[in-house]
């Protein structure tokens, strides 16, 4: 991988606010065609890291690199639109730029909500809104797709459909994808790299296909089999209640295993 393949990269980036570091020492990058998933506990700094990457927050230390003329499609965790603005799905899809009717219908069809095209945006359910937001994010074929908990509030069947769709979009357009997962252990199967965040990067690696996971019996024969994968954490430390880091080194100097 050459440097120019990198769409975004964070070098030792940190964000400090209200007298504390929300994240610190973040080194990561997303390349063209790569899927990176951030996992971690609530308040672990996943959203902060994404915001640093997007430039929505200015890093307090370190560097953030974004490829010049990077076209971004961003799907926030949720979107509340005030009743006072009359807006239908059709118009919402075009908020960042015009699109033809055909493009809009194709995008909505792919996420399975074509029938909502002329619906008021305020009348959508949580799951419907997630799908519309995802369709909106990839409508203009971005170089980088940033998805903040894309399947939150979507039922299981929808989750599989959306994960497969996200993978398809990556395969077709070779865009990079930076995604926040709502689950600590289960991620999208096509994820190339998982990064576990809790104020800093605790561990990272590739996910294990369900077939190879110890819990395979639980998933065998289910529809999850191809769309989901598990991530096995490999922490060399724990966080105590005051967020202090405790290294798990026993008397012999070797790491304990199996905690997370």
């Amino acid at each position, binding site marked *: 991988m050459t440097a120019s393949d990198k769409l975004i990269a964070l070098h030792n980036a940190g964000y400090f606010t209200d007298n504390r570091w929300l994240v610190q020492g973040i080194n990561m990058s997303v390349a063209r065609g790569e899927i990176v998933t951030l996992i971690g506990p609530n308040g672990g700094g996943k959203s902060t890291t994404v915001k640093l990457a*997007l*430039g929505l927050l200015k890093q307090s230390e370190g560097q953030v690199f974004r490829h010049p003329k990077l076209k971004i499609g*961003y799907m926030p965790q949720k979107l509340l639109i005030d009743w006072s603005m009359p807006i239908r799905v059709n118009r919402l899809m075009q908020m*960042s730029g015009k699109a033809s009717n055909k493009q809009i219908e194709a995008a909505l069809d792919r996420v399975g909500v074509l029938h909502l095209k002329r619906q*008021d945006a305020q009348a959508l359910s949580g799951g419907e809104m997630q799908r519309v937001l995802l369709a909106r994010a990839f409508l203009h074929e971005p170089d980088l797709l940033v998805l903040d908990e894309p399947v939150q509030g979507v039922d299981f069947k929808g989750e599989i459909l959306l994960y497969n769709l996200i993978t398809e979009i990556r395969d077709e357009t070779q865009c990079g994808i930076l995604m926040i997962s709502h689950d600590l252990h289960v991620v999208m199967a096509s994820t190339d790299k998982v990064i576990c965040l809790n104020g800093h990067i605790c561990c990272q690696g590739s996910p294990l296909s369900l077939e190879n996971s110890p819990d395979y019996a639980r998933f065998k024969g289910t529809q999850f089999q191809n769309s989901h994968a598990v991530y096995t954490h490999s922490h060399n430390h724990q966080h105590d209640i005051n967020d202090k880091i405790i290294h798990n080194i026993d008397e012999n100097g070797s790491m304990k295993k199996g905690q997370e």
Partner: protein
Amino acid sequence: MEFLNDFFIRALIAGIGVVLIAAPLGCVVVWRRMSYFGDTLAHSMILGVALSIALQLNLSLTVLIFSTFVAVLLTLFTQSLRFSSDGMLGLLSHATLALGLTLISFLPPMKVDILTLLTGGILTVSDNGLDAILAGAFIIPVILCFIWRSLVAYTISAEISNAEIGHAKIVNLIYVILLAWTVAISIQVVGILLITALLIIPALTARLISNSPEQMVFGAIGFGILAITIGLNLSMQINTPASPMIIVAATCFFALLSLVSFMRKLLLSYK
């Protein structure tokens, strides 16, 4: 132009000019819950007017510059300070009001007609004022057209528009300055106390019958012009002050349309 001497026609032109500016910006005010921001801008204009008279400067120009200054300051304040923007606006709104009234009390009593300042003088708009309105009615909608998509995107979600479009902060600043100009230009027509009403009531009325942001803007212009025309006519016939009558007319449209849409919903639910 002979007909410009007819004070009624003049008032009508001034009113329609103001509506062309205020209606689209008013829609955005409603969407972003900024009516208190508009009120604060309007109240601070008392200080602007007082300053221009005390320093013997051109009234329209001083008010325009002063309103821009206040709008930019308000935006910076509400963005960077820890106080709620509501509290901050409340502070500035009344502080500038009090300061303006204090300053006016030092001026010779005949210099400022406080009632006209507060409730507007659409029937006595000066030539200068009319020029300012017509220029504004041309320039402001043109600028607005350029930033429209970004502005609506920023209103829907600041995060998405920041991530995808980028220049969201500049667009927001341009919008706030346009709003300041609108307030500055409009106060002589509807007055400091009623400018927010002219911004938001036609917009809210249009909301009841529109399906897209753009439809709402055109609806607001329509209801605004209707309110100006009917309000002016009524005020002539029953001899009441013009600006309040315009707002009363606008409010009647809102009430009527609310009633109609309520009845329609009721009927539909019985079907």
